[in-house]
């Protein structure tokens, strides 16, 4: 019977006020242990691994000297254009598909096929059609990251309750009023959920486009490091990219948090 008691005891212990400092201790110890191990074993794999401090120094150097900052601007531009494209085009196509049942039945299978197809394999086709410059990159990047917004909008527009549309029809709404008073307010939260995902996913698209279409920006910097086995450089940029990714996911969650609050206050 000892097992049960210990299990119950453990469960209870977590519900006591002590849990928070155990939690903090876990977080802190995991970070400290990883950094310590990173530092301690940093020099034991030859050129393949560098200690934590070396990595951070290299990151600092690259930021101050400029190459990383310059690459960040190049990648940032592609990222922002991708995100804006995703929002504008994704919401538009989603609404168009939802507006007519026939059109959505006709094209939806192909949207899903395109979504499931590994976009990287389409890169040669895109480059044959459009070349290797900025806009082909946008095409690849958008192809990777548009679908959550598009499908979210479609799903939202489709789930508008029949009653809402009927009420609008009874009160003689014209097309413009229907959109302003019913469709747009109803679809917004669905689109926002897609936008939240796209904030993170557009970064994937940006990196893929930069890696595979005539390397540029942050991806090019990483590939340069790989070819000459400049481990410190590659590790520093990887950490940097991870930090940006965490921030972007955080921004996405913030967007969702505002959205949930807004939805609660709107529904009442």
């Amino acid at each position, binding site marked *: 019977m000892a*097992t*049960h008691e210990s*299990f*119950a005891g453990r469960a209870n212990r977590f519900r006591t006020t002590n*849990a928070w400092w*155990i939690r903090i201790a*876990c*977080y802190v*110890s*995991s*970070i400290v242990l990883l950094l310590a191990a990173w530092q301690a074993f940093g020099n034991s794999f030859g050129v*393949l*691994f560098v200690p934590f401090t070396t990595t951070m120094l290299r990151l600092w150097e690259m930021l101050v000297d400029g190459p990383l900052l310059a690459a960040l601007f190049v990648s940032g531009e592609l990222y922002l254009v991708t995100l804006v494209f995703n929002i504008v085009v994704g919401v538009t196509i989603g609404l168009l598909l*939802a*507006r*007519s*049942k*026939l*059109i959505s*039945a*006709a094209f*939806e*299978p*192909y949207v*899903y096929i395109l979504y*499931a*197809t*590994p*976009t*990287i*394999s389409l890169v*040669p*086709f895109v*480059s*044959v*059609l459009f070349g290797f410059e900025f806009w082909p990159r946008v095409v690849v990047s958008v192809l990777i990251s548009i679908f959550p917004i598009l499908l979210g909008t479609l*799903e939202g*527009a*489709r789930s*508008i309750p029949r009653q809402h*549309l009927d009420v609008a029809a009874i009160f003689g709404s014209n097309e413009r009023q229907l959109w302003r008073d019913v469709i747009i307010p109803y679809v917004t939260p669905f689109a926002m959920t897609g936008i939240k*995902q796209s904030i*993170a996913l557009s970064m994937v698209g940006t*990196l*893929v486009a930069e*890696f*595979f279409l005539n390397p540029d920006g942050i991806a090019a910097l*990483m*590939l340069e490091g*790989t070819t000459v086995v400049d*481990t410190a450089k*590659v*590790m520093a*940029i*990887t950490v940097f*990219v*991870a930090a940006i*990714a*965490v921030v972007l*996911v955080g921004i996405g969650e913030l967007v969702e948090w505002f959205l949930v609050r807004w939805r609660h206050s709107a529904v009442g």
Partner: protein
Amino acid sequence: MATLSSGLETGVNRRAGAAAGWLTRERVAPVVAGLAILLVWEVVVATQLPDFVARPSGIIMAVPETVSSKEFWFDVVVTLGAILEGVVIGSVAGVLVGVAMGRVRELNWFLSTYIRALYALPLIALVPIVIIWVGYSSTSRLVIVIISVFLPVAVTTADGTRAVSRDYIDVGRMFGARTHNMWFGIALPSAMPFIVAGIELGFARGITNAIAVEVLASVPGMGMAVFTKSNELNENGSMVYVVCLAIFAVSVRAGMIRFRHWLAPWYRGATG
């Protein structure tokens, strides 16, 4: 899909309902649209673009030549084999770590910083450092596929096993369940739909990332073939590979969704 029937355009609904039998407008529409897409593609390339650009008729003509070659089957076997191997290893590892994280809070707190950070990171950004560590070899591809599957599976398994209903735990305890019964007899089965959703997501990412590694590390396989064929200006042959990859990816997704619906009809799945 109750939402399907509440489409915006009610007029089409009524007219569609009037059409008798299985030959409804909704069933015919995708076929018409598909043919239209292929036709537009064919005509635009034939009239506006250089001869080497891939077009539907060219792709179909390239099928016999491509499929009869030895390299094609070699590429298919190595790429799909590596993906399947990575999915199996990544899923098993992800489930074990995920259950542990779901049932032991200290472990969850200890690991979650890294798991969540890696989960947020576009895995393509890990390819360069993995190439440095593992080399320009097929092992890099396997490692990346394993990570691609491991992360979503670990996260969904942890979420699923943490969300186990209190009642199951209480019943288990009453019948004298030991820790391993709690983990693998109660928590794991009830987290099954979460786990399948994680594998579904990981599988899709694994396919994409396997191709990415092949191209960046020059590992022979289907992804590499898409790019080399295209560089040789054999665009149609390149597209045959793309179509095969698309068929594989679509069937995997459809199969996993069907499996999940069969396993847990109530669960809607992970997104992203």
